């Protein structure tokens, strides 16, 4: 899965060129009545199933909590309490865990995916390339439940790898080991995804550049550090962005592998609903999370499309 941000960027690259060329070969048609109708239906579906529910959540987040109903009472008084409650350290730790563990997993995931992607991208079209590609795409589609269950079976109390905890000098139930399991779960998700993004990037780097650097006397590692990595910067950044977005909104992975000791913000939202039925508070958490993740996505995609990452050697 690519970020929609990169898709939009590439889309935007195609269109203005069309519009600006003198003879305008592909101008597109003016709206007809059918087209307006079609667009209207789609917009209506999005408005009803996404926009309006989100506005409701926004409104609900300012309502006073009345126990025992789904959603706030229509006439419940407005309050900021749902937000000020979140300043309590107990809540801050959910956010801290989410963003910290998410960042660790995304950085590790991109670092591990790069060599793998390089290996695939530089293969000729042979069976090893097809098998690895098929394998990565299958992994990308694989149900998150299978990953979580497989990792719990392998690294949990009955797994063959349970002794890894002892390597760290930790018990299998310790907070540190549980964090480690959550990172493993996220990695299983993030590595195939990053590898697929990076394969696309590396394939578009001219292999002659590395050969040139080596011919001019650079060692292979130096050629890669000075040539491949800068040219792949944009791809690395967008792989990180995809990984980070997926990691911080992960739900099942921390819920099952975190065993109640590690929980992400998404789990907090679900618990507000399933355990306390406190919808106004859940709404406030959802709003804060929405704003934070949108800001991160916006910032990183702006960074990725800025000219600093053009990759042109200077």
């Amino acid at each position: 899965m690519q970020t929609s941000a990169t898709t939009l960027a590439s889309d935007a690259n195609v269109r203005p060129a069309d519009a600006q060329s003198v003879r305008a070969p592909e101008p597109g048609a003016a709206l007809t009545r059918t087209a307006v109708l079609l667009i209207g239906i789609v917009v209506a579906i999005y408005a009803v199933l996404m926009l309006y529910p989100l506005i409701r959540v926004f409104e609900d987040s300012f309502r006073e909590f009345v126990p025992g109903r789904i959603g706030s009472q229509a006439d419940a008084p407005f309050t900021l309490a749902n937000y000020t409650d979140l300043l309590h350290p107990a809540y801050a730790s959910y956010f801290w865990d989410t963003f910290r563990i998410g960042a660790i997993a995304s950085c590790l995931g991109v670092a591990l995916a790069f060599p793998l992607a390089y290996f695939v991208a530089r293969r000729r079209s042979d069976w090893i390339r097809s098998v690895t590609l098929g394998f990565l795409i299958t992994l990308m589609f694989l149900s998150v439940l299978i990953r979580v269950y497989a990792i719990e079976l392998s690294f949990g109390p009955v797994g063959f790898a349970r002794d890894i905890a002892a390597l760290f000098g930790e018990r299998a139930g310790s907070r540190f080991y549980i964090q480690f399991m959550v990172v493993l779960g996220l990695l299983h998700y993030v590595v195939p995804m990053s590898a697929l993004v990076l394969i696309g990037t590396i394939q578009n780097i001219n292999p002659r550049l590395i050969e040139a650097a080596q011919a001019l006397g650079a060692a292979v590692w130096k050629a890669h550090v000075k040539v491949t990595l800068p040219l792949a910067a944009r791809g690395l950044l967008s792989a990180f962005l995809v990984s980070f977005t997926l990691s911080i909104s992960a739900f099942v992975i921390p819920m099952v592998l975190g065993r109640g000791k590690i929980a992400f913000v998404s789990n907090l939202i679900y618990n507000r609903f399933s355990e306390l039925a406190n919808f106004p508070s859940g709404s406030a958490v959802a709003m804060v999370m929405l704003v934070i993740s949108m800001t991160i996505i916006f910032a990183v995609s702006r960074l990725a499309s800025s000219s600093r990452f053009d990759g042109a050697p200077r």
Partner: protein
Amino acid sequence: MKRFTDSLLGLVVLGVSIITVLFLVIPLLMAAVMSFDSREYLGQFPPPGLSTRWYTSFFSDAYYLKGLKVSLLLALTSTCLSTMVGVAAAFTLDRYRFPGREVLSAFFLSPLIVPHVIIGFSLLLFFSSIGLLDGFVRLVLGHLIITVPYVIRTTLASLVGIRKSFMEAALILGATESRAMWKITVPLAKTGIAAGAVFALAYSLDDVSVSLFLTDPNFYTLPVAMTNMMRSQFDLRIASASVLLMIMTIVLIWLLDRIAGLDNVVGQGVYHK
């Protein structure tokens, strides 16, 4: 010295790649092997004997079977709906020019970046406030909104490559707008549409975070059933369910390869012959 560091780097990179692949594969194989464990309880690896007891147990459990049935029905229904909606959106976005077009296409893709838990939570609030309590309808609508963007994206990608002049030619030769659409654009874009439908099917079959909010005691999906079981009794029926889901995924990937070609999904790149 240069040679030495170079070959060392090569070894390290190869080593890291191999460990990464093993990390991705071995847990899955573990789950597959354990699903054939003959013990009655969840014991340590390796299993002392093999049997298909967990599969028998899975297929005789009404709770899981109900979930499987709802999942399949739901995936088919929501995929049909989201393919129709997504294709309509992509075609109009591609063919017509109007102010706010860029904003609209960003809006149509936005469910991809809004965390799914938030979508699930907001839909739950909304459906409850309007009194929509039927579990299946709620699930279909929830899955519709999270799968449509995939269809829009793959369809848009395939439409970019189609010359507008083909459509103009059909119109000049006297075809009506809709006839030209059905005879020219749809056949040329069918790879993208089909790939989008496969994506939608896969994500619908997999979703937990939206479904968990919208289920009711009568309508729950297989992943929701598995999640509940993982939290209450961690037994090996989940392993057999996982193997079934893995097989479904592999079938979908095979379909995607047949329809679009995996190399086209990723692209071969400029410097690759």
